[in-house]
């Protein structure tokens, strides 16, 4: 009897979420598969002339293969920033959680400020310019690391609280130095939270628009999000190409979601409920 209600409730929920959440994505896919004239009608209909692959190709070729350059830049930005974030925030969280005392108070304050305070844009541009890092990929990578540290440190710290100190002490008794204790003993047991941090930051940094817009402007080395925004004016009357681009930009998160669904959802929930 109870199951009947479950089936009805679930059925209604499937229809309602279908309307609100699936139709927008179906619209992207369908429009990306239409030819120029049909896509301009903005209708939610099956393409008369199915040209999805031609459109994807055209989106790639547009503006001298800008998409490929942008994908490459986003890849470099994401991989380097995330790798650095994982190592650095794990180290900070390790010292913070294990050491206590005045340094812990200092880290605590820095993390809280980093979570709340919105970055001051123009002074950051100014600092980057003084260092010769404005409009450069390394500059943007430093920015992503600086802005991502507080959140990642919190995630690592929460996890470290569950790892017994005896582990570090046993390694210490065996004569291991701080570096080898951290890299050979602590990092390996943090594998699951490393995966979580990696996935979350990959999504955040790949999707980031504001920071590349400010700190890596110009057409030299765009990321995928700024390129998509630029295509909007470029493709003002070419909705098929605009949506082919949106589809391409959406594919990497979709692929990640298919493979790491559970891990992403758990990580987001765990990371958000305070560490």
């Amino acid at each position, binding site marked *: 009897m109870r199951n009947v*209600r*479950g089936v009805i409730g679930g059925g209604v929920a499937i229809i309602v979420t279908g309307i609100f959440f699936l139709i927008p994505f179906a619209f992207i896919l369908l429009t990306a598969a239409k030819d120029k004239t049909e896509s301009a009608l903005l209708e939610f209909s099956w393409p008369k002339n199915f040209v999805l692959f031609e459109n994807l190709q055209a989106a790639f070729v547009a503006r001298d293969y800008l998409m490929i350059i942008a994908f490459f830049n986003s890849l470099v930005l994401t991989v380097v920033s995330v790798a650095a974030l994982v190592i650095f925030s794990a180290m900070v969280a390790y010292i913070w959680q294990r050491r206590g005392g005045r340094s812990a108070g200092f*880290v605590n304050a820095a993390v809280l400020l980093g979570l709340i*305070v919105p970055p001051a*844009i123009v002074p950051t541009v100014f600092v*980057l310019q003084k260092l010769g890092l404005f409009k450069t990929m390394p500059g943007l990578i430093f920015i992503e690391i600086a802005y991502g540290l507080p959140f990642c440190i919190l995630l690592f710290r929460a996890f470290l609280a569950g790892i017994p100190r005896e582990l570090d002490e046993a390694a210490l008794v065996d004569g291991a130095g701080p570096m080898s*204790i951290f890299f050979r003993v602590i990092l390996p047991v943090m594998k699951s939270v490393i995966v979580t941090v990696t996935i979350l930051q990959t999504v955040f940094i790949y999707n980031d628009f504001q920071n590349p817009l400010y700190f890596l402007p110009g057409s030299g080395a765009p990321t995928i999000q700024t390129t*998509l925004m630029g295509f909007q004016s470029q493709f003002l009357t070419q909705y098929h190409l605009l949506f082919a681009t949106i589809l391409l930009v959406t594919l990497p998160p979709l692929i*990640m979601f298919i493979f790491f669904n559970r891990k992403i959802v758990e990580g987001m*929930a765990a990371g958000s409920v305070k560490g």
Partner: protein
Amino acid sequence: MTHTAPLTNQAGTARTRPPRAGRSRRRTGPYPLYFLLVPAVIYGVFFALPTLLSFYYSFTRWDLFTATWIGVDNYRAFFGEQALVTGLRNTLVFGVLTSGAKVVLGFLLALMLTSKIIARGYLRSVIFFPVLVSTIGVGLTFTILMNPERGLINQALGTIGVAGPGWLTDPALALISVALVDIWKGVGLATVIFIAGLVSIPTEYYEAAALDGASKFQIVRNVMLPLCRPATASVITLSLIGGLRSFDLIWAMTKGGPGFASDVIASVIYKQYQAGFYGLSTAGSVVLFLLVTIIMVPLTWWLNRGEDN
């Protein structure tokens, strides 16, 4: 770096013991402060230093090379110009509206997804997926779906006899429309946080409530809501901070328009920066900083305090 650094460190902290004493080495030895060095420099140079500089430069006329002290003129300009005051008000409206809606909808969806309905895993995935999608992609898509004449939303409303509004073209509605899309994109995160909070409530509470003859509504009201308070606190904190700083979606959908009807502080900062008014833009950053701090610090304190009781 070698092992000498931690030894000197601990010699400084543990004054009473000689540096090589075994007990002291065990206490601080494996946790050297030089682990903090690189991240502290990155955080300091690229985040903390610009934040400190912003207080000075917000009182100047600034072209990045020379700065002329002009006192509070930037702030006077900021609060004197109608467009910028609208931005301030819109930031508050946007932040409160989106985080409020995410709390209510997220909690209701989490209730649904922890009840005994079919296809829970599927439903959770569908609701959550927009969280991962590019904000710009979502913004551009909805801009087209919200097209007043040809957009899918108004066409669908037309078939059931409702004349859809000019979602993004009506100045009174533009900000609300962007907020709706922000809620659409973000409610999945609120939902999974609430689900995590709800499933962590021990079943004994439900059993005790059922034994006392509590109705379903009473269980939700008196058991579930208070016990998932940490989750509620997280959702409020996260979405309010995100909402007050929000830029990407607004920029992708309206660029603050029509006119400046949907401008928020973050988009004002960008526009002033583009126009070359660096001092004014920096004053905007300081205003945003103060706004977020004034709201978030007491709120975080209040939310966490309630948790201890």
